[in-house]
């Protein structure tokens, strides 16, 4: 059981971390585009 939990937790953390990183970079890119439009 502990091995299974460790593996699922590790995989979940890696995938969730990547999705959070994508969301944060997408927000920054949108902000860039907005600043261009407003400049």
């Amino acid at each position: 059981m502990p091995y299974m939990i460790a593996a699922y937790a590790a995989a979940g953390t890696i995938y969730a971390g990547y999705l959070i990183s994508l969301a944060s970079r997408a927000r920054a890119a949108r902000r860039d585009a907005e600043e261009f439009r407003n400049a």
Partner: protein
Amino acid sequence: MKNKISILAVVTIAVMAFGMYQALVAAPTERTMGDAQRIFYIHVPSAWVAFMCFGLNFIASVAYLIKRESIWGDRTDALAIATAEVGIICCTVVLVTGPIWARKAWGVWWAWDLRLTTTLVLWLIYLAYLMLRRFSSEGRAPLMAAVLAVFSFADVPFVWFAIRFRDYRGNHPKPVFGNGPNQGLHPAIAKAFFVNLIAFTLFGVLMIALRYGLERRRQQNAERRLARSIEGVATPELQEVR
């Protein structure tokens, strides 16, 4: 485009939830390894998505080398970087979940087995690819990365066939499908596996679509920045997004 991604996200979450139910609840507990065998349901699908991404990266890189002067140049380059990044994330999951499973099944975290070693080399090659893209100057980076990607893909068949060689005697198990009579999976385990294979494939496509969209936006921002600087208009202080 945004609607299609939203629909894909909803379908992926639903299939993934069903897949996790199949993996953690519905599938029977394996006799010798116990619950640790359930790592199989995330380990193998993640490896499959990594292979799929590296295959797409190869196709996109070849397409970029052929069509880089046309309107497809930026699109194929965006697809190449998206698939490389998602591929390396999935490969990382494979390299993390594998040793945890190995500790239970073999009694060691790591063995310098042919399959494990070639997978680690694959991960290092695509890490080098991403570092080349991140740290080289903007102009030549896509071309150099595309050339590197074509050579990087050469390792993928080695990883795939590593456990299929006739004289293979490593720790990693041989493939459970297409490996002769009296081989294969229990029907309940096979069902959980294929549901997760579909779920992870959808998840992989979703991550690629999101990363591709981000890269296209970044390319458009870079083009606008260049156009402004050529026009001599002062550009606002913009944060570089990679």
